[in-house]
């Protein structure tokens, strides 16, 4: 197509091609495209190297997606147990800190990508529900000379305990979503939750839809991180916030050695003993080492178009929360 060929000149440039493509596209084109690899993206992919890392192995781009899928398919059932065992429960604090940083208020639309088992989504719902209750109580207290009838009516007309907030959990892996749905049922989360099967590099959502985009411990498994960042930029509303919780580089040398020892010696053993799966947990610790450092990742986020990008290292840099805004 003529439009594609002229856009080929721009396809080398990492940053702006997506905007150019949007101009080149005919209206209504998006809905007619199949969910397979987009024709325009192929041109830019040809220019990039076709090999990438899978832990410390080298695999082709196409292989990595499938291999990561298998890893998470096999770990899904024991995912939460293993998280607790490996991090000694600290991962719960990290996720709580992410929510605290997000500080959502009733009405926030959250997209949680790679959020398979729903940890962030459930925390978000609890947070927003608590906020909403607090707001209501404050309102009631502020009103003076309110009759008992009016107070009872206020509590009865509980139309939306979430105050309009919604969370969409998107994950590429069916097994992880299945576990997440089971957990939601067990914990009693019904309203305000949607589960979508989708690829972080190609989100099945329209532009400018969400207030907050979060991705916790998921972005290092994505084959093309820059594409995922660009998709994040696309689906966020102007003024929206990008939040990423991910393993990062430890800054203290002593802790780094202890952390390496623990990661490579103990974690695969835990995986074998508890989940019966050595290789998946070996991949996990290796993929942590392959992920860029805090500064480099910050630059990648800036390249995707985000502004006011900051990061906060937790637990001496074992994890870091990166935050950026689409302005």
């Amino acid at each position, binding site marked *: 197509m003529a439009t594609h060929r002229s856009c080929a000149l721009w396809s080398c440039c990492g940053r702006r091609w997506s905007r150019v493509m949007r101009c080149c596209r005919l209206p209504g084109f998006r809905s007619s495209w199949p969910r397979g690899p987009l024709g325009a993206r192929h041109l830019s992919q040809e220019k*990039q190297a076709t090999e990438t890392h899978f832990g*410390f192995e080298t695999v082709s781009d196409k292989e990595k997606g499938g291999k990561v899928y298998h890893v998470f398919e096999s770990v899904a059932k024991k995912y939460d147990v293993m998280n607790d065992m490996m991090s000694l429960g600290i991962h719960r604090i990290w996720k709580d800190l992410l929510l605290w940083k997000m500080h959502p208020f009733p009405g926030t639309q959250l997209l949680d990508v790679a959020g398979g088992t729903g940890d962030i989504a459930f925390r978000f719902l609890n947070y927003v529900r608590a906020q909403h209750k607090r707001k209501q109580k404050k309102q009631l207290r502020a009103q003076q000379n309110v009759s008992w009838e009016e107070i009872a009516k206020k509590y009865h007309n509980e139309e939306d305990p979430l105050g309009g907030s919604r969370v969409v959990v998107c994950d590429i892996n069916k097994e992880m979503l299945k576990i997440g749905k089971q957990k939601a049922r067990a914990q009693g989360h019904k309203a305000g939750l949607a589960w979508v099967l989708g690829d972080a590099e190609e989100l099945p959502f329209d532009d400018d839809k969400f207030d907050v985009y979060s991705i916790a411990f998921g972005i290092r498994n994505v084959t093309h991180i820059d594409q995922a960042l660009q998709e994040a930029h696309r689906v966020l509303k102007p003024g929206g916030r990008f939040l990423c919780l991910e393993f990062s580089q430890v800054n203290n040398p002593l802790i780094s050695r202890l952390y390496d020892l623990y990661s490579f010696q103990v974690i695969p053993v835990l995986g074998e003993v508890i989940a019966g799966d050595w290789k998946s947990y070996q991949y996990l610790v290796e993929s942590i*080492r392959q992920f860029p450092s805090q500064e480099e990742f910050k630059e990648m986020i800036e390249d995707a178009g985000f502004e006011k990008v900051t990061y906060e290292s937790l637990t001496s840099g074992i994890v870091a929360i990166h935050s950026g805004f689409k302005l």
Partner: protein
Amino acid sequence: MATLLRSALRPLRPLGGRRGPAADVPLRGVRHGAGLLYPGHIPTSPLQKALLAAGSAGMSLYNPYRHDMVAVLGETTGHRALKGLRDQMRKDPEGAEILQERPRISLSTLDLDKLRSLPEGSLGQEYLRFLDVNELLCHKFQQAWTLCVSQGRPRGCQRHYIPCPRTPLLRVSPDTRAPTRFVDDEELAYVIQRYREVHDMLHTLLGMPTNILGEIVVKWFEAVQTGLPMCILGALFGPIRLSAQSLQVLVSELIPWAVQNGRRAPCVLNLYYERRWEQPLLALREELGITEPPTVHVRGPA
């Protein structure tokens, strides 16, 4: 322009391997498969082996259904015993042949029809009967499972045997044996694999069913024969979950019998079972010096 170039080049950067494995990381090799002694090999450091041994011992006690944990325990603790076993096999002519040819026993390599056609009382027939009686073979279509057991198996489906999903405690069929992973020597990896596959043969030889009592007796026999720490631990800790009555029978009759025969018999890994299908079981027992096994109830306390 510089930033655009940088962003275009960024995806290439992680390939440089700028963050290579740390000093105490068991190296997997740059390319998948390099540096591995045999397919499925996972190189482990001594610390990892120790942690695995401890973890697998604990997990097998906690959850006896985790057969893979028993296997891992055997692999991580058995180095010295396996070397001894391998030397014994090398000294014996039949054993040396086994080490050379590396035969494998699995349901797919067993010719079930041929075994069924063998004369009554032969090793092959008895082995097949052992698999049948202990419900290690079952019809492919599980909803017809109870029907086919009571009415005899339909002719057409005798090829389609799968490990029975309803196997009670400790029952494992030839095909559910996980491949060796943590042994750092290729020949020893085969020896332990052979030992696992011969386990069912031992049940047939000793006439022991696959309930807990039978398994413990076989474990005692194996512990005396092979000296594998996993067998010794299994033999010592297996009876923990038994009732007092079974414990009494075990200690008074079964264990002394197993130990005596284990001491008397030559190394059972030296038998090329695949060539002995036609040999009558009683003759084989006489050859090995195994006396009449004491009766153990088939539906023993689980």
